């Protein structure tokens, strides 16, 4: 790949963004931020949001949004806690129950998005409120409380809620594994082509024989499963499930994806970009604590990064197209 081709890749901007942000907080955050405490704190955050950002990013490449992840995290967490904590079933039943909730919500999202003309943004806002309401209602009905505690067995704990070295959550390993799997799916397997194609032009993709509906439903199920996985991992880590919380994942996952160079309008993006965007987001998110700066500054930086990313994504798209013409 030529230098020019590297320069016009959106990932290049993501790497630059990450390095700049890291150096900034390294300067203010001191030794703690550069050392293991800093790395573990932002990697733990990155892993949580990153697992969700991967499928949310694929959905965005395919031209769809998923807001409902914000309600699936607590719903799955609560489901697993009620099954395994309240009813005392084995952990795997609770886990399957939680994942089932995620898959079901994902399926409903996909079904509504592909069968109706309602934009996915609206559909998934709708399912988000429904799931939020159901989670609260059922938790109060069954447990009479908005939080349920659960102490997992040691094996479950070590797989899903353990802190390696007392600092690094095992989710980081899960995140890396998911990222590799998504990389294979999007960039190496033939099916990845379909994701780009439906994001570029759904109608033409369908006419080319791509099962567009099934693919979209599948991506929503993936996204539901990923959000549920994070909810379950939170339960195993903190040993308690709350009905509230999780809303932060909505904007955070979208920010990671956009900072990572995925086009809001679909059709372009990469898994490496999404991972880099997630790391950038997490560095800012945690760097702010280490640096002792006002947390509002963190919000400002995130906002500025987001705007810069949206602008440069658009710029990169224009550049990539122009470059391709000139190259000859």
């Amino acid at each position: 790949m030529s230098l020019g081709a590297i320069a016009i890749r959106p990932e290049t901007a993501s790497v630059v963004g990450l390095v700049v942000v890291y150096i900034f907080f390294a300067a203010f955050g001191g030794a703690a931020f550069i050392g293991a405490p800093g790395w573990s704190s932002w990697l733990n955050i990155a892993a949580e949001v990153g697992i969700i950002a991967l499928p949310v990013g694929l959905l965005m490449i395919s031209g769809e949004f998923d807001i409902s992840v914000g309600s699936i995290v607590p719903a799955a967490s609560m489901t697993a806690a009620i099954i395994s904590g309240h009813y005392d079933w084995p952990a795997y039943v609770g886990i399957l129950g939680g994942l089932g909730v995620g898959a079901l919500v994902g399926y409903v999202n996909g079904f509504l998005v592909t069968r109706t003309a309602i934009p996915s943004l609206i559909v998934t806002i709708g399912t988000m409120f429904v799931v939020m309401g159901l989670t609260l209602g059922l938790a109060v009905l069954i447990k009479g409380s908005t939080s349920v505690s659960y102490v997992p067995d040691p094996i479950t704990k070590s797989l899903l809620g353990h802190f390696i070295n007392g600092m690094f959550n095992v989710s980081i390993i899960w995140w890396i594994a998911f990222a590799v799997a998504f990389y294979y799916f999007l960039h190496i397997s033939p099916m990845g082509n379909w994701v780009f194609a439906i994001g570029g032009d759904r109608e033409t993709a369908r006419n080319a024989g791509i099962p567009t509906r099934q693919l979209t439903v599948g991506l929503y199920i993936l996204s539901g499963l990923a959000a549920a996985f994070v909810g379950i991992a939170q339960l195993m880590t903190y040993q308690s499930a709350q009905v509230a919380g999780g809303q932060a994942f909505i904007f955070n996952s979208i920010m990671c994806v956009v900072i990572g160079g995925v086009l809001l309008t679909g059709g372009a993006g990469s898994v490496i970009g999404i991972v880099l965007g997630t790391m950038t987001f997490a560095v800012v998110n945690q760097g702010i604590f280490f640096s002792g700066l006002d947390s509002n500054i963190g919000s400002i930086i995130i906002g500025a990064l987001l705007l810069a990313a949206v602008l440069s994504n658009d710029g990169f798209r224009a550049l990539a197209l122009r470059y391709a013409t000139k190259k000859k």
Partner: protein
Amino acid sequence: MTEKTAVLELRNVNKSFGPIDVLHDISLKVNAGEVLCLLGDNGAGKSTLIKTLAGVHKPTSGEMFMDGEKVSFERPKDAADRGIATVHQFGGTFPLMTIGRSFFVGVEPTKRIGPFRIFDRKTANETAVKAVQEFGITRIDDGDRLIGGLSGGERQSLAIARAVHFGARVLILDEPTAALGVKQASHVLRIVLEAKKRGLAVIFITHQVTHAMAVGDHFAVLIRGALAANFMRGEKSREEITDLMAGGEALADLDTEIESHMETHEGHPPPPAH
């Protein structure tokens, strides 16, 4: 001369969208190695007709035959599987995908590494570039280029090359030259002739008489959804065709009117009539 079986034939096809009748009783034959120009004013029903052929719409009544065999398409894929390929005005392609990837959308070439199926980028790129170069577009030589970086004519050519590569027998082109400059349009017209030479049946929609005259063997004119004329090359004059395309109104006269107006008004065209 023995009558050969038409590749595609319509018999008494009607299409209505609810209460709106768009196509009335269309009977039409399309032969291999022949360019059929589908002409008609805006809203005459040309796009609706080809969408019916391509399986996007189902006829409300009437029958379709391929090689004399009755067919009925439930979805575009069915028509595509029978070798009916449609190229839309902008090539219907993916601006942010590479030439190689978009060429093989839905039929990705793969190789196997252990248990994994892998998109074979090299084969995809080489095949795509070769296919379009065979049509004389030698400027396309890198399968990693983005579609969005190609000119309109190159995109059209690529889309046509793709259809031919995947064994299309009927090539449907909806206004392929509409947005193109003179040079680009002539490129596309040459590719249309090349496709015809390879034995494809081509259905070509255009609003430009010159383009139709340049490549057409067979002309069909739609006026308000009905087949107003159906004739072979040389059977009608340019003026007659122009008239028919305007829905039977004397448009040819307008040309001469404008010319004489410009002569007497120092080159200014007449103000538009309201």
